[in-house]
């Protein structure tokens, strides 16, 4: 089994799990999440929350932060911005064809993406569990929250990868497109297509009830349906683009 995405000695992986850049990114995301956890700790007694019919914000804060962090990290990793390169190689834009571009996407790239997303989520799991415990989110809600983070991160990663395949690494268009995607996905969907917005879904789980402004199919099932459909479309697009080979694509890289 080929698993160069774990330790990439040749420097030809998009985001090797244990590369210097990724190790730093993993720790930083964990550290930021721990600060968010402390920030959203319920500093009042539990009976005070029950008496005032208020829900502690731990779950909402930590899970929303995890959605944003993992989404951003996924996007950066997919767009080949986490590749361990030095400053000059970025300026030179020396073309490096990555294994993810070379090899069949479904058998190499996609498993690598899924495993890395799971790995990052796994590192944050103690914080996520503690936050869910504090807010009293039931098992189903916890599972749904974790899957929302996972799906969001994977979707961002695939969007970043497609951008990379199209524009190449460290290009202005590529950079702008990935950020625009993140803003559109996390903010614009809140206004235009609330059912597809992961932050609103986390909010609905925090409230423990379907939200009034979400349509009938706007609950978790709706989110999963839309996200999986988009995910499937992105996977197919990535597979097609990878099959066409690096030569068939434009961009400096």
């Amino acid at each position, binding site marked *: 089994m080929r698993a160069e995405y*774990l*330790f990439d000695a040749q420097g030809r992986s998009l985001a090797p*799990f*244990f590369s*210097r850049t990724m*190790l*730093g990114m*993993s*720790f930083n995301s*964990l*550290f930021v999440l*721990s600060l968010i*956890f*402390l920030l959203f*700790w*319920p*500093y009042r*007694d*539990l*009976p005070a*929350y*029950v*008496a005032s*019919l*208020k*829900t*502690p914000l731990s779950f909402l804060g930590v899970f929303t932060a995890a959605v944003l962090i993992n989404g951003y990290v996924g996007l950066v990793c997919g767009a080949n911005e986490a590749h361990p390169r030095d400053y000059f190689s970025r300026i030179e834009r020396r073309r490096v064809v990555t294994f993810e571009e070379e090899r069949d996407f479904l058998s190499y790239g996609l498993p690598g993406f899924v495993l890395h997303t799971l*790995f990052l989520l*796994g*590192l944050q*799991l*103690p*914080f996520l*569990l*503690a936050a*869910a*415990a*504090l*807010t*009293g*989110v*039931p*098992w189903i809600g*916890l599972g749904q929250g974790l899957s929302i983070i996972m799906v969001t991160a994977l979707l961002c990663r695939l969007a970043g990868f497609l951008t990379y395949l199209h524009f190449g690494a460290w290009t202005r268009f590529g950079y702008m497109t990935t950020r625009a995607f993140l803003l559109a996905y996390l903010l614009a969907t809140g206004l235009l297509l609330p059912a597809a917005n992961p932050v609103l879904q986390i909010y609905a789980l925090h409230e*423990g*009830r379907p939200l009034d402004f979400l349509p009938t199919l706007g609950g978790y099932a709706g989110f999963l349906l839309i996200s999986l459909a988009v995910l499937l479309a992105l996977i197919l697009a990535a597979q097609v683009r990878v099959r066409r080979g690096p030569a068939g694509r434009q961009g400096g890289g």
Partner: protein
Amino acid sequence: MKARQNREGRTPVGQRRGGRFLLFLLCFAPVLFSVFPVRAAGLGLDYTLGFDSRFRLGAWTPLTVVLENQGAPLRGVLEVVVTTGSEYYQNVHATTHAASVDLPAHTRKAYAFSLRIDAFSHPLIMRVKSGGRVVLRRSVNLRPHYVTEPLFLVLGERISPDLFGQLPAGGVPLAPLARLLPRTWYGFEGVGMILMEAAVLSALDQDQAAALAEWVRGGGFVVLCGGWRYEPLLGPQAQRLLPLTVSGLEQVASLKSLAAFAGRPWTQPGPAPVVRAAIQGAEPLAVEDGLPLILQKDLGYGRVIFLAFDPFAPSFSRWAGQARFWERVYGLKPPAGPGPMPLPLAGLEKEMLAELPAGFPSFIWTALFLGVYVVLVGLLLHRIEHTRTRQRLLALGLPLAAAIFSLLCLGLLYARQADRGRSYSRFVHVMIPEDGRPARLEAVVGLYAVRPTFFRVHLARAGFPLRPLGAPLVADQARQDEVLSDEAGGQTLEARMPAWSHRFFYLRGVVDLDLKAEARLGDAGLEVAVDNPTGRAIRGVRLAYDGRLFDFGDVPAGRRLVRRLGQARLRLESGLDTADLKRESESSASDYQERLRQRIERWAFEFILSSVKSRSHPESVALYGWLDEDPLGLAVRPGDASGSVVRLLEWRVPLKRSGTAATGHGQGTDHAG
């Protein structure tokens, strides 16, 4: 179909299109069926609300629903939805009363409910559900049915409409059918007076007779009339109501002694039949030729007036003093019920909410635990980055560390919090008055949910109406309505509660407690003897006397306890104060039930002390203690919900003054002083 085919055997185009259109419409059939409620064929619903279609607002009232099934056998549930609150304040709240329905084909059944209706602006909904779908629905506009005055029920077959004009003002006279009277005592809550012929008693079933008797015991007022048809007074229904002995019918020359009672001259000629009756412990209010015409009997907190003559006979109904007579009779009504209990329960909710079994984990320990995890991950990442030889081995450590800490979080934090996610507490206050009347009980049940919970509270005893205490605080919670089901010998409340919410429910009633106490004040001091033949111990009893509170000790089950406070102690000792109680309750109780008991004790005794101090020259002493068991038999589901119960017994004992204090004590007697 064949005749319409052309020679080639093909269906004409228009017909094909018509068929497709029908198929297209059929696709929408399920949608149509789901939008409009299905009406079960042959199912009919009739109802009688209140008494003669009138009910008193803000009081419990009867509702009889008659279901008639001329179709297929039906199994389901009959629901009656009472809605209160205001859309403006976003506190609209519905209580559903439910009863199981099992109607074979061609049957007719009546279902009796007792409802508390607080608002007339929302319609009353009655619906039959079968297989999760509404098969029949009826909405009732409450505006034409409500009144705000007490109701005067006149029950009998020979009631003249003229009588209604003779009854005193301040009430709404009604003549309901006896068979539609409520089957719970609280169903009579809106009634001010019941005036009934003796014959009506035989028309009541067992439940109705029991409910009537219980209502009287709890503060109700019944005027029972004799006359020619006195046979029902000999029956068990009459005996259930009052200890009446009837020895026949006699003729008196006139009813002129009623003149003294009513303050109007008796003008009616001719003799009148009078029932010769005796009621144990009753007070005669008018006597004619040695026969009591009017007897007054106090039963519990209520009263029964027995009229030995027939007030519906023409000889009485033509009397000019009739209106004054009924006014005088209504004047005998006991004070409105037993009155409020001494403890203000409004402040209790806050105390109950302050002590819950659930709590957040320690911040220090959680931060330390997760901090260790972050440091460990940081160290591993650092080692992986700076080593070449054991990189793969160290890389395995990362998921391992994450798995171990995740499992610890799951076990120590998540599962533990989940266990404590739902809880309840209950405060029961039993008060035994000094005048020998039955004990009164009121209770507050608090349900608390940290996660969405479906609570089921089962009350094994009938006769204690459960109702929500206070309106839900937020609109979201108002949607979480509760369902009340009356079952044989009890009732069940089902409440679906969202996360981080609480609800309080209130119940009250009259109970029998077989406790006896005696207090004597003599030269030797104050001696209080308590007999507790019940199987329940009374713990931490305090004695309130002369504006002070003294320790009395525990009264074990099945024991007699005598305590004596000498004159010197009575004169010198200032008694317990709030500070003492606070000091006692500051012991570091680890058990939340004990913490709750101490908190409620502190809260209750603040009121008790202030009430004790306001009565510095009492004619009675008061005992305050904590019961081991309460007589309610209340069970809460889910079974894993943590619960705590606190039961306060308040007992007023009349004080007997004598020259010397009683001295003899039987076996099992304790002495103190």
